[in-house]
Every structure is written in C-alpha cells, then in structure tokens.
C-alpha cells in the first residue's frame, strides 16, 4: 500500500462531463502527487499555445502524497495551470482543509478544462461529481460564497463540505487573482483565480469521506508525535517582539551562517510570519518605497509593525490541517481606524510589507482592512502591493496625473488613497481596471516600465535579491518566476540538506559578499534548495516544515514510511529535480523563453542604493549565477532549456509517454 488514492477526476466544463481516471503507479514513483502530478498531467495535456483564459487551459487542484497519512505539516493544496501573467507554468498553494478533502473524495487531483456556459460550481462527495448552477453565488465575495454554500448544503451532505472558490477579482478575470478557502485564505500567485473565473467556475465543493491510505501509519504517527512533543515545549517569553527591530538592524550587518531550524518553530508559534516585518525593514530583506528606498526612508517604522501589537488583538490561533505549529490567527479589528470589518486573518508578512514599507504606509490599521478586502476579493496581496507601489512612484514622478488616477493623490504613505485604489482594483473600476492585471500590463499602458517590478510578468515576493543573491537566482530561474518560497539563503542555512543529500553543500559561515559570486557551491545550493522545495510540494508539505530543517521535519523518513519505500535522500532529491525539469519543459513547450525572465534593474542594484545595509550592492554576477544554476540542473546554460540527456537521465522521456 502507498498513500496515493491512485485516481484523478477529470472534468470538462464545456461538455458538462466528468470521469475518473486511474494513474499508473510509475507516475507516482516518479513525481509523487501535488505539484509533481500536476506537472506531469499539465505538460502532457495542455496544448502548446493554449490561451490561458481559454477552454484548453486546465486548472488543477491537487493534494500532496503525505496528506492524510498522519504526517505533520502536509496539508497544503496546490493549484496549477498555464499562467495568464507569464504565459508559462503557473501555480500557487494554500493551507486549510481543502487538501484532505480532495483525497477524501477518492482522488489525488482534480483537472478541469473547458468553459461552462453559465457560472457553475463542482460538487463532489466521492460518489458523484456534479456541475451545479452557481447563479446564487456569482458576485459574492469569497468568504460570503463559502458561507452561503455551507448554509445551502447544511444537512444535505454527510460531511461538512470544504470549499475553494474565487471572489470578485477572479470573476472579473483580474490576472493577479487567486483561489480562496477557509474564509479568505488564498492560493494567490500566478493568476490562478483568473483562470478559474474564465471557466465560469465559482467554486469546487468537496464532501467525501473516504479513508486516506498509508503504508505504515504507526511509524508516520511516531515521527509526528516526536515533532509535536518538541513543539509543545517551544515557547518564547511574551514581549520579545519589541526587540525584533533591533535584531533586524544587527542582522543587516551579519555574515551568512548556518541556523538552527527550531528558530522557525519558535518565531512562528509566537507570532506567525508577521514577525518578519520588523526584522525585514531595517535588515535590507524587506523592500522599501517600491524597492528604491532604504531603511533611512522609514526610520523607526519597524516599531509600527511590532508583532506584539498584532498579538494583542489575536483572538485565537488556528492551524492548517495536520499542522502542530499554528502560524495563523484570527484578529479582532472592530473599531480600528479605516476598518469596516469585525475580524480578519492575521496578515502575513508579505501583506504587511507590500502595503507597509513598500508604500511608505505607516498605518497598521489600514493593513487589517486591506488584508480583509483582498482576502474576500481573492486578490494577490504581493502583486497588488507591487502594482500600487508602481502607481505611486509614477504619480510622484509625474508619469501619472490626477486625471488618470481618478483624482487620487497617489503620494507615498497616503493611506486613504491606497485604500481607494485597491477598492477600484477589486471592482475593476476606472483607473483600478488597468491595475487589476498587475504591474507589467499597467506599465505597458501608462509608461513607467522602469518602475514596474516584475519578473516575466509576475510581481516578486517581498524579499530583496540584493540582500540575498541566492533568492535572486530563484526569482528568475524558477519556471513560475518571482516566487519567494522556492529558496533563500536563510532557509538553506536552516535546512541542513547536506545531511540527507550527498551533493548538497553544507551551509557555512561566510561574508554576505561571497554570495554575490558565481561559484559551483552556489549553483549546487540553489539546485538543492529548488529540488527540495519541489519534493516538498509533491508531498504536500509546508514551507515552514522545510524551514525547521531535516532533523525536525523528517520528510525522507515520512515518505519511506507512508509509501513503503526504502529510498535515500538522493533518490528523493532526484524526484524534486524531475518535477522542476518537467515544469521548465512546460514553459519551453508553451513558447516561453526562460532567458526572458530577468530581475528588474533596480533589484540588480543598478543603480546601487545610496545608504543602509544594501548600500553599494550590485548583483554583477547574477546572470552568471543563473547560468550555473541551469547547468547544475542539466539545462542549457545559455537558454535554460533542459538538455535531452537530462530528460533521459530523469526518465521524463518515458514518463511523458504515459497517458491519463
């Protein structure tokens, strides 16, 4: 027995039909499930040149291999499709309860093609899969739609259904929209919401009760118990958050170093990802003033985003399925300035940074409101923040005027104008309409391309490549560019990958300037980090499990126990390599030139910043690092196209002949 359900559900919205399809065991052996299964299926089944918003694009929802086995931190659900933002591979993932719900319907993944004539939702309870009218839900925000579906299906299903749905942003085909579950938690990136909206698919509603298999549940549970017992003891004294800003100031001048993965556990249990905001503002990690500013421009802003303030209004923590860490929380925001909602999810670091220092916005309260607005609309906070930052800079520099901005005075830190602009983007109203498709398209329409921060059309996550050149390589070498969750120096330092992989270099204490150099070690580090992230995604694992390191979150041991295999780390890293290469092949098949993914000049340090911890930094060897990364993967080092010998070595030539 393995942990796989062995089947997928294939739905054609144009014909209104669906069918179950068995997946050969060799596919699971090669790419696991989750993003791996999606890569295999989408590469084989989306025709070259397919319109991302047309019927040939396929929207995939998948659970990872370890989901439902008892393994901790394996509750991520993955969405994939051809991205309307980049024209190539697109994916996003999210926590919540939706991943086990896919498997409990009897599937590892659901693949949806075609376009419905009228808005529909897909209902599946493991016995039947039906397309039902979504007329009553179309137009509702994601949280309202989920509530309405729960209310309408109450008592009808044996099990309370899990809902993944789009909000108005996806319905209106905003190319920076995502797909939500659990009251606005969002799989945000790559424009996956627009693809769902283009299919007139409001929601996927799952209410199955099938058991999820596992080869050796006792061993899996013992591994989890060991981790859970450690975590229960990991508690920081309250109030330490006020010192994080000082830590960030120090960190900006520290060398790179190996870290203990338990730091992740301590920080995320105490505060969640929001703790990184105060750290990132002074350290050089967090972008300021549309990536053109320095900590001097926002002196003492780290105190505004002090995580203790957010902890004070946290009503309770919540956990994703199978997570003992609990980095999420619900906040009571009633009565806060600018706020029209009673509660919101604890804003993630990415949202705080994208609507705080990136826009020189000093109002934490306004970010609670923006967070809830974006979550309900189903709009990507990273992309939206980058796009608003571009608009402000263009307005400040006279590229945009009041007439174009519908009278909005888009000055740095003008909180009211930021709120109004995001409202307009969600509603696709006036000036907001042009911005709802992200910064690349907005700058193509209005100019100011030099201030449009994107990589191949995708706005980058809130970490600066000048602070972490390794991240810069991932930003451009990743088949879905601009992602901050593929790898970074800090993460590599905490993971101890060298202890499971014979070729992964150990993290060593070294001057940060060394990371600016092109070296074989750096290429192996970026390759190892990307391979391990793909492996994690195939398993359905959480990035923060990764960041706890291989000695706390034991992915290799989990997989061997759950699947009844006896492979070493090198074998599993090759699975990650295979998934990554398949995704790169998807881009090549779709006519995307990997070499066209480039860091914006500003992020290359051209010109260099005049002050702060990144003063004078230029990523002069960045392109050479990307070439070395491609070479390490066995891809052409000039074009980024996977070489035939690599495709054969990884068995992808045979894998892509397997049909489903």
């Amino acid at each position, binding site marked *: 027995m393995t942990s796989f359900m062995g089947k997928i559900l294939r739905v054609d919205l144009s014909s209104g039909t669906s069918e179950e399809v068995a997946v050969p065991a060799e596919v699971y052996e090669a790419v696991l499930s989750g993003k791996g299964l999606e890569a295999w299926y989408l590469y084989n089944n989306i025709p070259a040149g397919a319109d991302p918003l047309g019927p040939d694009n396929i929207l995939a929802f998948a659970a990872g291999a370890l989901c439902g086995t008892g393994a901790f931190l394996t509750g991520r659900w993955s969405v994939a499709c051809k991205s309307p933002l980049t024209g190539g591979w697109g994916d996003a993932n999210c926590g919540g309860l939706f991943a086990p719900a896919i498997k409990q319907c009897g599937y590892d993944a659901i693949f949806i093609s075609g376009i419905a004539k009228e808005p529909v939702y897909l209902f599946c309870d493991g016995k039947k899969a039906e397309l039902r009218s979504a007329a009553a839900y179309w137009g509702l925000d994601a949280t309202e739609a989920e509530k309405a579906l729960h209310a309408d299906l109450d008592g009808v299903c044996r*099990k309370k259904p899990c809902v993944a749905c789009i909000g108005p942003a996806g319905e209106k085909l905003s190319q920076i929209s995502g797909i939500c579950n659990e009251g606005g938690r969002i799989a945000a990136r790559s424009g996956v919401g627009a693809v769902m909206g283009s299919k007139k698919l409001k929601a996927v509603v799952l209410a199955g009760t099938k058991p999820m298999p596992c080869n050796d549940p006792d061993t899996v549970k013992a591994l989890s118990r060991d981790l859970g017992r450690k975590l229960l003891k990991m508690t920081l004294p309250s109030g330490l958050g006020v010192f994080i800003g000082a830590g960030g100031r120090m960190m900006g001048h520290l060398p790179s170093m190996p870290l203990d993965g338990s730091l992740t556990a301590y920080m995320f249990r105490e505060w969640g990802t929001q703790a990184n905001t105060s750290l990132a503002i002074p350290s050089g990690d967090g972008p300021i003033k549309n990536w053109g500013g320095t900590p001097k421009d926002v002196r003492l802003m780290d105190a505004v985003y002090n995580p203790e303030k957010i902890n004070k209004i946290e009503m*309770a923590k919540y956990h994703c399925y199978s997570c003992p860490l609990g980095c999420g929380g619900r906040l009571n925001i009633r009565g806060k300035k600018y706020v029209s909602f009673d509660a919101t999810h604890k804003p993630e670091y990415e949202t705080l940074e994208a609507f705080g220092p990136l826009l020189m916005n000093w109002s934490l309260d306004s970010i609670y409101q923006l967070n809830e607005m974006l979550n309900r609309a189903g709009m990507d906070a990273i992309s939206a923040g980058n796009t608003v930052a571009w608009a402000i800079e263009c307005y400040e520099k006279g590229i945009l005027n009041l007439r174009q901005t519908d009278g909005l005075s888009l000055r740095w830190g003008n909180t009211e104008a930021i709120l109004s602009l995001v409202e307009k983007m969600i509603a696709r109203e006036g000036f907001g309409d042009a911005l709802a498709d992200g910064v690349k398209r907005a700058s193509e329409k209005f100019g100011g391309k030099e201030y449009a921060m994107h990589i191949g059309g995708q706005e980058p996550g809130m970490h600066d490549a000048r602070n972490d050149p390794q991240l810069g390589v991932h930003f451009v070498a990743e088949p879905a560019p601009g992602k901050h969750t593929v790898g970074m120096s800090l993460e590599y330092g905490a993971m101890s990958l060298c202890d499971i992989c014979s070729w992964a270099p150990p993290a060593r204490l070294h001057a940060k300037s060394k990371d600016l150099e092109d070296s074989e070690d750096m290429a192996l580090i970026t390759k190892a980090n990307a391979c391990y992230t793909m492996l994690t995604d195939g398993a359905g694992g959480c990035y923060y499990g990764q960041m706890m390191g291989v000695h706390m979150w034991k992915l290799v041991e989990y997989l061997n126990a759950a699947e009844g295999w006896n492979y070493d780390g090198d074998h599993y890293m090759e699975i990650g390599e295979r998934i990554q290469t398949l995704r790169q092949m998807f881009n090549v098949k779709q006519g995307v030139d990997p070499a066209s993914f480039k860091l914006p000049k500003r992020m290359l340090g051209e010109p260099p910043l005049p002050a702060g911890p990144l003063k004078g930094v230029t990523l002069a060897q960045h392109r050479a690092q990307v070439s070395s990364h491609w070479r390490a993967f066995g891809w052409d080092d000039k074009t980024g196209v996977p070489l035939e010998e690599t495709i054969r070595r990884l068995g992808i030539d045979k894998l892509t002949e397997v049909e489903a």
Partner: protein
Amino acid sequence: MMKKTPVFDYLLCVSCGICVQTCPASALGMQKEGKSGKYRNLFPELVTDGCIGCGQCAGACPMEAIRMEERHEG
C-alpha cells in the same frame, strides 16, 4: 444504551485538526477555546450528536491525545 465517544487530552493536543477532518460524521469541530501553554488556541470537541463511535479520530491522532470512552446515552 452505551456508546463510545472521544475524550480529549488537551495537554497533549497540538490542534493539528487531523481528528476533525478524519471524522466521517462531521461530529468534531475545532471550536473549543483554550490554551496550549501560554497560547490562546482552538481545540477539537464534539460539536454535534452525530458521533458514531467509530474511533477513527483516536486512531488518526498522532499525539495519542484521544481515547474512546463508553458513556450512557438516551
């Protein structure tokens, strides 16, 4: 009539929600407010009378925080 139902040890529970999602009768919910050490957290509890006593929640819990106990019903 005797019926087995889950009893939770909240000192061992890590709020992972595996039991809630495993329950085939949707009888459990993460609704009990409490503390895990110093952290305000939500814990699983019976939220409907639909428990069928199958014990899948206890079997699935990695933390061994659930035991099934018989109690009188009706």
